[in-house]
């Protein structure tokens, strides 16, 4: 398996990515993370809860996809008022990014899919 720090750094460099993380698929704990873009001192750090809940949600998406007989999900995008959460699974880990609304979503998706492919 390739080192995870460069992958996170690479994802975090994509325009519009607020934070990129590698998270344990079953425990939801952060394995590797970038800094949070634009986070002011005193702001609540979104990484730990986002990582835990996104990984948890992804396990449910896997079950939903399986129940619908669609096979393994390739990519999960949660669209919210002020941005997106992207999740891609790669065996024991999931890649999680928080992305702004004006980001190049296709580019972020491609980078994440490539990262997942390299770690599967």
């Amino acid at each position: 398996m390739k080192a995870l720090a460069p992958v996170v750094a690479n994802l975090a460099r994509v325009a519009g990515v607020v934070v990129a993380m590698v998270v344990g698929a079953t425990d939801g704990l952060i394995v590797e993370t970038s800094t949070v873009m634009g986070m002011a001192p005193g702001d609540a750090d979104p990484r730990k809860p986002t990582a835990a809940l996104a990984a948890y949600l992804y396990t449910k998406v896997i079950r939903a996809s399986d129940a619908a007989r669609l096979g393994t999900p390739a990519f999960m995008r949660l669209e919210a008022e002020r941005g997106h959460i992207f999740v891609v699974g790669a065996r024991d880990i999931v890649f999680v990014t928080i992305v702004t609304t004006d980001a190049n979503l296709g580019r972020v998706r491609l980078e994440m899919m490539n990262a997942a492919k390299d770690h599967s």
Partner: protein
Amino acid sequence: MSDPTVAEQWVSGPLTRLKDDARLISGVLLYPSGRAVGQFGFSNAADVMSICALTSAINASARELGRQLDGKPFYEMHHAGAQRQVFMARASAGAQEFLFVGVFDRESSFGVVEIYFAEFQKALEKLHPQKVVAGAGPSGDFEGELNRSLDALFGPIGKR
């Protein structure tokens, strides 16, 4: 899943939220002395009694182990079994300290439990009554304290 039974009413709300949000199978909130404050997922007082005694002992051992190894006490423990996992942690409210032990399975995750436990801790801090609960600290009568708290949770022996 049953609602928590509590010896002190103010912990009922936070315990219910923790159980539901973190999708815990069972859990016990207790004082470090081993006296139970609330529980969910158990129907047998003897099980809660064992868990309180063990959690109290494990907490004391972990603290000392932490001091020896890391210069500061260990406050949180996680054991992942094949099917179920145990999460044990300290919560404080004002000057009062509590211990919590919870069991979860693949319907939850350690990360999720940690997140909601942090919220639970904040809720305890907010709701904790200002007056000190009588007998919360160790009195030396470990068995008596344990039995009194179990009576509060499950009713007196003979009526359970």
